[in-house]
């Protein structure tokens, strides 16, 4: 089920733009943490749809299982017990996984052409058959999402069920979510839906309820409704202002062409020096005096 290149907005390690004539409606997944009961149905639906089975781990004193994202677990629930208001416990449960950034750091960092693509609808997808296993995507991601498989040294992460979305279905986690904490649709509709949820939360006393759609990465195609949008770090260290690391931006930004140019210039400089100044030859008679 190859997509035509026209449906692709960006492709890793590709220096020219992909064909952009056709557009697509940007999609988004909205995760309303105020509705999330942390049941992990999304985790199971993800492993079922994507044919993944992580190892049976152990309990390490928390409800989080598997304890972290892995090449086999593309989404995990992160549980935080907090008291924002003294004496009023809140159990904040965040579904962690790829945020599908509009400006994806993974794609920016990836050196393998076509290993990471961004579709016109906003989904950022890994194509493992092109992945070389360098792990650069890990350095590029501001959310610490991609994981390199220990089995095959390829990078894996949530695809936003690109195969389901491509045939007009919602992602598996969205479909399964029992409470409707995860919803899916056009990004515009999701923002609208979020506004309704935020108004409801504000009525219920969450003055700082808000939408998490961070501008630092150009917005995301996975967004959160947070009860405490002023403190995203409460939610298992969700970054307050995520952006591609300046080091990665430097490395994959200006340095790439400039350094290549520098090498080219050096070679050319040698060439022109040779044809202008000429070789340094030793004339034997000169040396024999």
């Amino acid at each position, binding site marked *: 089920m190859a997509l035509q290149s026209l449906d692709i907005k960006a492709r890793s*390690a*590709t*220096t020219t733009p992909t064909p952009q004539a056709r557009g697509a409606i940007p999609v988004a997944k909205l995760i309303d943490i105020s509705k999330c009961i942390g049941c992990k149905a999304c985790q199971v639906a993800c492993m079922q749809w994507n044919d993944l089975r992580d190892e049976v781990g152990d309990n390490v004193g928390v409800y989080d299982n598997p304890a972290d994202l892995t090449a086999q677990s593309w989404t995990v629930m992160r549980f935080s017990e907090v008291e924002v208001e003294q004496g009023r416990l809140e159990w904040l449960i965040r579904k962690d996984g790829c945020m599908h950034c509009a400006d994806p750091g993974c794609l920016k960092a990836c*050196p*393998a*052409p076509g*290993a990471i693509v961004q579709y016109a609808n906003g989904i950022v997808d890994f194509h493992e058959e*092109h*992945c*070389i*296993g*360098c*792990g*650069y995507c*890990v*350095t590029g991601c501001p959310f*610490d999402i991609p994981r*390199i498989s*220990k089995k095959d*040294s390829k990078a894996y992460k949530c695809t936003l069920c690109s195969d389901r979305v491509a045939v007009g279905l919602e992602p598996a986690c969205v479909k399964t979510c029992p409470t409707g904490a995860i919803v899916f649709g056009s990004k515009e509709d999701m923002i609208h839906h979020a506004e309704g949820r935020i108004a409801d939360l504000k009525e219920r006393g969450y003055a700082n309820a808000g939408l998490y759609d961070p501008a630092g990465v150009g917005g995301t195609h996975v967004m959160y409704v947070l009860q405490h949008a002023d403190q995203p770090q409460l939610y298992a260290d969700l970054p307050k202002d995520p952006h591609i*690391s300046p*080091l*990665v931006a*430097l*490395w994959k930004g200006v*340095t*790439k*062409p400039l*350094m*290549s140019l*520098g*090498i080219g210039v*050096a*070679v050319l400089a*040698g060439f022109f*020096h*040779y044809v202008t*100044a*000429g*070789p*340094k*030859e*030793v004339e*034997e008679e*000169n*040396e*024999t005096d």
Partner: protein
Amino acid sequence: MSQLIKRYTSKERSNHWVVAIAFILAGLSGLALFHPAFFFLAHLFGGGPWTRILHPFIGVLMFLSFMVLAGRFWSLNRITPADREWRKRIKDVLCNRDRGLPEVGKYNAGQKYLFWVMVICVPLLLLSGFFIWQPWFAPIFPVGVIRIAVVVHALAAWIMILGIVVHVYAAIWVKGTIRAMTRGTVTEAWAKHHHRAWYRQMTGK
């Protein structure tokens, strides 16, 4: 024809070429991973994953062989006051106005500076490469460290590549030089012209 003078032993020559080959392979594979324009070079190594697998091992080989080489030539590369004088006249050198240049030992200042650049860059590449080596070591380190490492690695590699471009060009430019590393000998005339102090030392003239 003037007499020939021994400049490098066979061991030294082999050592140099091991470093050189490792550098070329590491450089080509590194460039493949550095910029999409060079990704085609990955095909030389059997594709992207092989490039990623082989590059660090080649790098380690380069490091080890370079360390031996550096040990061999360490003392010959100490910078002397004469080198500073030579450096001041680098324009004359470049314009082939060699008359009146200070007498040069086995290595001129340019060669020495290159040596020390290599001595800094090669271990730096090894160290930074270690942090980003998938799948063995990178998973151990926090992503912040890896992000610094990738930048350091790229910078060090770039400086080293520039240095080697100069090094290779100098060998081509200064006629009679390449045979020193291929056959181990140079002509007396060459030695006398470029490395007079060394020439005296070798010949006693």
